[in-house]
Each structure stands twice: as C-alpha cells, then as structure tokens.
C-alpha cells in the first residue's frame, strides 16, 4: 500500500507535482496514466525518497521509504532511466543489491531465471540491449520478493514479445495479491494492463478510479441477419440507435435489454457487444485543460 497526502514537488519554481493525494492498493494493477511531463516519474522518485518532497508526504506500508527496515523486501522499483553501472555484470549488480538487504544469494539466480537473463548474467551490462537492460531492472525489482512493485514506463523500448511478457508479469504479480503500480503515457497499454487508474495531468491527480468507472460502456453493438426488423423494434422502444455499417449501435441500454427485446420479437441476434469509449477519448475529455502542450496538427 502506497499513500500520498498533499504530495508536492517544485523544481526551481516549476511545480511538477501539486498536492497529490492518492493510494495504491494491493491485488490489482494500478495504472498511473498521464502525458509526458505530467509528474509520474516525479511521484515515483518521491515515493522512493530519491527526491525530497517540497510539501506533503508519502508512505509505503505506513512508513517513509527511508524508514523501512529492509526496503528491497517491501518495494521493488523499475525506474525509467537505466540505473546500473555498465562495467558491472548483471549477476554482480544483483549480488550487491541482495547483500545490502540481507537477501539470500540464491535469490539472484532465481530472478535471473525469471527475467531470462541467465545466459548473459556474467557479461558486463554495457553490452546489453535496451530490452535486456529493462529485464535487469525488473530482476532488481523482484529480488527482494516485495509486496509492492513500481514500474515507470516499463514497455519503453521493448519489442512486442517483451511487452507481452511484462504485461503478463504485472498481472500475475497483482493476482498474487501484490501492489503493482505502473506508469505509462500509452493509453492502449493501460487499457489492457490496469484494473485501476490514477490519472495525472500537469502535476495534479485528475482521477483515481477503477478502469470500469473511468470508461463505462456507452453503447451496445448489435449484429443480426434481421437488422431492419430489429431496428424498427428498437425505434418502437424509443431507444437511441444509429446504423453503423452492418451493425446497429444502441445507446443507453444494456445488452440484456436488447437481447430480451429481440427474443420477444422473434428476431435472431448474432452479436451483442457493450462498447466502451476508448481510453484515449475518456482521457482527452478529462485532460483537455491540463495537457501541457497541445499538439498542433498539420
């Protein structure tokens, strides 16, 4: 559990984080969504005590990070920028980390297996590809078998296979009851990974909600070989609907209501799909005012 209260960070007159209140809970992947420069990395650095808060506070399991008796056993963090020395091998990097927190050395081999770096673990890290470097950072985060994991833009620079791997990893960590906090500016990524969302823009928390509440389904897509008849039945109910290609889009009602209607009218239905607005649409509605720089088209 991570709790921030009034968390504020000002860098030389520029407010990067503005009285942020949020809590990250166990058992679900919490997405930390916002455009670049919104304050995501700042918040994560403040959680780890790497930067000092200008005002407010943030605790991890009820304590300031620096007061944790063995921080790596409670929090594992993958930071955005590379955070290892290129002249040292992955194995030695993990070995020194383990030693500082009293983590048994055999754990090093275990996490190297988990991230699939075993074969290159003895090589100096400067020769690693972007994806291998990312895996090393994840191995370091998993080292202490912590209950809380933070990933700052984890899919950056990963190939599709790596993205899929990290997505599954985060979901399985959350399913084990851990707290998983992952930042991204990629809404498509959040849409498939996160169950809960904290949305940030210009240093302010704009929303702290479940994914379902953030983007409730707003219409149902209906496909039917009896589409014209079904359209008339829907119109007779005074439901709003439009025809979109070979489907009918019905607004403001549940799939169940449409299914019942079709059954009563004796019409066949081949598809009934609740359609969510895209995360992008929901996000743009929310942050219309808070995006630092609006893109200029053309």
């Amino acid at each position: 559990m991570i709790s921030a209260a009034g968390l504020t960070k000002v860098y030389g007159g520029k407010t990067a984080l503005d009285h942020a209140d949020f809590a990250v809970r166990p058992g679900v992947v919490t997405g930390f969504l916002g455009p670049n420069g919104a304050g995501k990395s700042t918040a994560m650095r403040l959680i780890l005590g790497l930067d000092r808060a200008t005002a407010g506070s943030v605790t991890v399991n009820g304590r300031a990070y620096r007061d944790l008796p063995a921080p790596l056993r409670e929090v594992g963090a993958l930071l955005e920028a590379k955070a290892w020395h290129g002249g040292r091998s992955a194995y030695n990097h993990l070995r020194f980390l383990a030693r500082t927190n009293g983590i048994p050395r055999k754990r090093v081999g275990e996490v190297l297996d988990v991230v699939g770096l075993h074969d290159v673990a003895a090589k100096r890290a400067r020769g690693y590809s972007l994806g291998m470097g990312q895996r090393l950072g994840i191995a370091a985060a998993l080292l202490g078998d912590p209950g809380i994991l933070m990933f700052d833009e984890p899919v950056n620079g990963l190939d599709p296979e790596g993205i899929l791997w990290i997505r599954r990893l985060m979901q399985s960590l959350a399913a084990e009851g851990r707290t998983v906090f992952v930042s991204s500016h990629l809404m498509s990524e959040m849409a498939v990974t996160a169950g809960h969302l904290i949305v940030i823009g210009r240093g302010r928390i704009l929303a702290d909600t479940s994914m379902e509440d953030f983007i409730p389904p707003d219409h149902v897509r209906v496909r039917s070989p009896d589409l014209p008849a079904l359209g008339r039945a829907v119109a007779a109910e005074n439901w709003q609907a439009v025809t979109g290609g070979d489907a009918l889009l019905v607004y403001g009602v549940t799939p169940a209501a449409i299914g019942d209607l079709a059954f009563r009218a004796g019409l066949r239905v081949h598809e009934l799909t609740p359609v969510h607005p895209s995360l992008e649409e929901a996000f743009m509605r929310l942050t219309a005012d808070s995006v630092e720089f609006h893109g200029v088209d053309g």
Partner: protein
Amino acid sequence: MTPRRATFAGAVAGEWIKIWTVRSTLWSMFSTVVVTVGLSSLLALAYTLSYDRLGFRARLAFDPVAYGLAGLNFGVITLGVLGVLVVSTEFSSGLIRTSLSAVPRRSRLLAAKAVVLAMIALVVGLISSFLAFFASQAIFSMRRLGAGIGDPEVLRAVTGGGLYLTLIALISLGAGAIVRHTAGAITSVLGVLFVAPIFGVFLPEDWGRTVQKFLPPAAGSAILTTRETPITLPPWQGFGVFAGYTAVVLVIAFALFRRRDV
C-alpha cells in the same frame, strides 16, 4: 546467517562487492603501486648518480626517507581517481538511484563507501609506501646513503605514507560526492593538490613559505619527512592539517549528499 534487514554492515558488504566488480578498481590499485614504486626508484637512482656533483649543503639537507618516498606524491593521482570514481560513476551511470533504493539512508550509503575505500586505499598505500621505501633505500645504499626501517622516525614516515594516500582517497571521494561529475571532481582534486602550491610560489618570500606549508600537498606529505625542514610543518602537525582539510570536505560532502535530489 545474514540478517533480514538492511544494516550498516550490509551496506559496507554491498559496497565491497561493488568496488571489486568494476575493472577501474584493480587498474587504480595496480597503477598506484607501479607509479609510486617506479617513480620513487627512478628519482632515487637520479639522485644517487648525481651525488658527486652535489654541494655540501644539499648533501646535509638530504632526507633519504622523504626522497625515497617522493613517488607517493604521484600515487595521489591514481588513488584520487579511484576515490572520485567510487561516487561519480554512480551518478554518471544512474546507479545511484538503485543504490539509494537499497540503502535509502544517505549517510549510511556514503559512510559505507568511505569505509570500503579507506580499507582498500590503506592497504594499497601501505604496500606502495613500503615497496617504494625498500626499493629506493636499496638504490641509495649503493652510495651508503640509505636509511634502515629501524632508524628513528623511519617507520612513522613509511606508515604515514600509507595513511596520507588513504586521506587522499577519502578527500577525493568527498570531491566526487560534491561535484558528482567524474571529470569535474578529478580536476578539482588535482587542481588543489598540484596547482594550488603554485599560488604560494608567487607570494612574497616569508608569506609564501608559511602559506606553502599549510597548503594541502605540503601539509599532507610532511608525514614523509624524517628531518626538520624549513619548508614543511612537523610531520604529525602537517598530517593533522591535511586530515582537517579531509574532514571539512567530507562534512560538506555528507551534508550535500543528504540533502540533494538524485
């Protein structure tokens, strides 16, 4: 059994692993020994060969121990670089963020680095100092100029050589933590140790002499002398002054390291 919590001992053990798992450490150690012993021997040889041409005064002022340890002044460069790198590469690589995630108490991390560096610098410094002493005295002995390790003040001077190099490493670590950039920190350390003395040269004679004695390199290397000279402080007094400089730099380094964002 290792404790399941983060302790100072754990931080020291972690730093110990860290320092031995990059190549620069072994290179610095190796080059320190080569440079100090090599240059001490070379200078001893040059002196011995030109002994016949020296005047009475020069022969009288000759301190075979200080002269024989002159090469240690160049070990300042290699151990100084090691001291700087121990901190500065953490910042240049980004490792500092990982290190502080594992050891979030800032003073504990920097103190662990200082302890490990001091241990290594002391061992390398003592090896360099003793080897430089025995090599140079063997050369001086060709003209019966050499001192023995059992002679008065000699053991203090040779051991002091190791201590001096240890302080050099620590003051450099402090500079690395203050400046946080490798090149900048090395420049400041070498600037203070090699360029500052030039300042004393240009002061009027009596001032110049006094100031010179208190400048870092002369104060620190006073510990290498076994004879009173007008240009250096008494050995332990000079060493004390240099230890004071080191302490000041480290205090500033700790204060900044505790406070700054990384």
